[in-house]
């Protein structure tokens, strides 16, 4: 009995591990679609609308990669993953890449054997409380019941924060954002903690967003970014440089409106030319064609446009650019040069 259980595990794991080394680019091309792990539903970042069409900040990153690789941003199969299932899904090859508010940490990069290709959102962990509680600082939360998504870095930050401030709390672990929201709104927990962007997105979906406030303390650094498996450097490069292309496009003022025009013929800015493939052949180095970056940008626009439509100040989520402004505007969004 014991033996057969053990063997069953072995069998499952060996199937899971078997796919790790294959060429992801070839797999994606052969399948004709990109399997992209996203969150189970966080408005603004990744959520399916009433027609089942996915949209959001992370979703647009997936679509840009699909546009670069397959030539069509709609050829993406979105796989909803929870905080707990995401790494297994990626490690087992169930998804080709993960774009799911995932914090880049040392142990995830090194020990879990993933490759973070960059940062598409600089975030930090915050707290949301109902205004009726009259709490103004996270340090007033002694004895509070805190709803938290299990399997995330926020779980560890929370433990550290309360421990270092010598105050107590009662954690309520929950699997998904939707469940957390239900518990928080019913008052089964006083506080909801997750990345500040997630709080803003969740708050925006409330019936009365003004009854809730996000506390000023940001207790951690949460650089969020897409990631792929270790061991397939070509695929890692493709995802990394697709993200960089979106960022560079904002810096060079290439938008979804003018990208077609700029890609038609070489202009007088050499970096634009290299990026859009009108000069040199950066695409071939990635194993793609010349127009890869131009398609990625044409899909949903450059980084700034994606930010603005999904989570920016004009959207219902209403997040300011802040740290996520381009470096030229004093933010941290910066891409290595296309050269």
């Amino acid at each position, binding site marked *: 009995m014991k033996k057969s259980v053990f063997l069953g595990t072995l069998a499952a794991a060996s199937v899971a591990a078997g796919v790790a080394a294959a060429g992801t680019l070839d797999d994606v091309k052969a399948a004709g679609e990109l399997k992209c792990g996203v969150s189970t539903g966080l408005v603004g970042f990744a959520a399916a609308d009433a027609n089942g069409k996915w949209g959001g900040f992370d979703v647009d990153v997936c679509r840009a990669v699909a546009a670069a690789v397959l030539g069509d941003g709609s050829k993406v199969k979105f796989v909803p993953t929870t905080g707990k299932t995401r790494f297994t899904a990626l490690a087992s090859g169930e998804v080709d890449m993960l774009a799911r508010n995932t914090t880049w940490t040392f142990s995830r990069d090194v020990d879990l054997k993933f490759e973070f290709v960059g940062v598409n959102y600089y975030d930090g962990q915050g707290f949301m409380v109902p205004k009726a509680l009259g709490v103004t600082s996270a340090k007033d939360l002694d004895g*509070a019941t805190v709803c938290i998504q299990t399997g995330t870095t926020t779980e560890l930050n929370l433990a550290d924060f309360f421990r270092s401030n010598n105050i107590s709390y009662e954690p309520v672990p929950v699997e998904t954002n939707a469940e957390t929201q239900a518990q928080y709104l019913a008052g089964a927990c006083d506080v909801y903690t997750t990345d500040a962007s997630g709080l803003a997105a969740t708050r925006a979906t409330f019936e009365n967003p003004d009854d809730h406030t996000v506390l000023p303390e940001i207790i951690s650094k949460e650089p969020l970014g897409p990631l792929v498996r270790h061991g397939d450097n070509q695929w890692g490069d493709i995802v990394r440089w697709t993200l960089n292309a979106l960022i560079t496009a904002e810096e060079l003022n290439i938008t979804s409106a003018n990208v077609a025009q700029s890609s038609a013929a070489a202009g007088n800015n050499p970096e634009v030319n290299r990026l859009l493939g009108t000069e040199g052949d950066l695409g071939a180095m990635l194993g793609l064609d010349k127009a890869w970056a131009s398609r990625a940008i044409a899909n949903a626009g450059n980084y700034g446009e994606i930010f603005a439509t999904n989570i920016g100040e004009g959207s219902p989520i209403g997040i300011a650019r802040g740290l996520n402004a381009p470096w030229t505007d004093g933010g941290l969004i910066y891409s290595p040069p296309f050269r």
Partner: protein
Amino acid sequence: MSAITDPVKGGFRPSMLLYDTRYRSMTIQIIALVGFLIAIGWLVSNTAQNLADLGKPLGFSFLWEPAGYDINQRLIEYNSQMTHARASLVGVLNTMLVAFLGCITATVIGVLVGVMRLSKNWLISRLMTIYIEGFRNVPVLLWILITMAIFIEVFPQPRDFRGEDAVASMSLFDSVALTNRGIYIPAPTWFAGSGAVIAVFLASIVGMVFFGKWARKRQEQTGEILPTFWIKLAIFFVPAILAYYILGKPIGLEYPELKGFNFKGGFYMRNSLIALWFALSLYTAAFIAETVRSGIQAVSKGQTEAAAALGLRQGRITSLVVLPQALRVIIPPMISQYLNLTKNSSLAIAVGYMDITGTLGGITLNQTGREMECLMILMAIYLAISLTISTVMNWYNDRVKLQER
């Protein structure tokens, strides 16, 4: 392949392994065994190879690293600086707690419902049928989720208890607080002399057992029947209550009070524990009820009638004639119901109850990325718990089974 049908004339030829019925089954078994071992060897080496390729060789040292996360329900001391192994132990205890509570309530409810389903009262037996069919035929995960959802939405939040014109108030003379975070009940506080009261209480339990044995012996010798139930009840309560008052009430009650965000003091049973316990009990009780019903119906009607003909009253017929024979049928399937309940408790994470699947198989697995190791330990733990339960129940089964003389 040549067909050899001639009778064997002395000596052993290799072809006999296949065509001689004396050896054939042996040959097939050996081939099957070799094939099985090769399959195992392939699985093990392939897994080891793949894990090595991933750069994640099998190792358990992560268990001794600090866990880093907090757990709300702790039966033993634990904080985020303790090891993953300690966090797993907290989870194991939480699993065992809900399994233990669940098995007891499921048995009580199941037996009652099973008996009531056989009731001659049409309404009662139909209601019980509805309950049994409703619970048996809906997945237990849904029952757990809906219990939790109802719990959260129906009961007031602690905030509602605050203020002059509070929306909610505590029940049972302000001693119990029903909130959507759980139930707070008064907890005993121990003063000097409380040990003596407990000692008296324990002594009276021992006394009760001895009295029972003595009464049974006396009945077998003289035929006289004592009202053992009432006497036992008196032995159970009276000495302890007397000691309590004589020693000047050394045990007090600590009432829950609203302080800050939550109630403080008293026992706190979390909503997740209650929802899980309640749903698992009701679900398993539906199966137990059917087991009990089948057990009672398995005792032939002639037994009851014979006992009645001997002049036994209804209650005694049930306890002396029907139940001992029914238990023999009931207990073996009951073991598997207890095992089911224990294994179903692994759905705890759906309501945020930190059992072993939530700690070791959830957060630890996720934070360390040691899927293989965590799942192997997890399986070993469930196996150990299940085997323990079935050992205990098999021992009990041996005690109640029909003694053949």
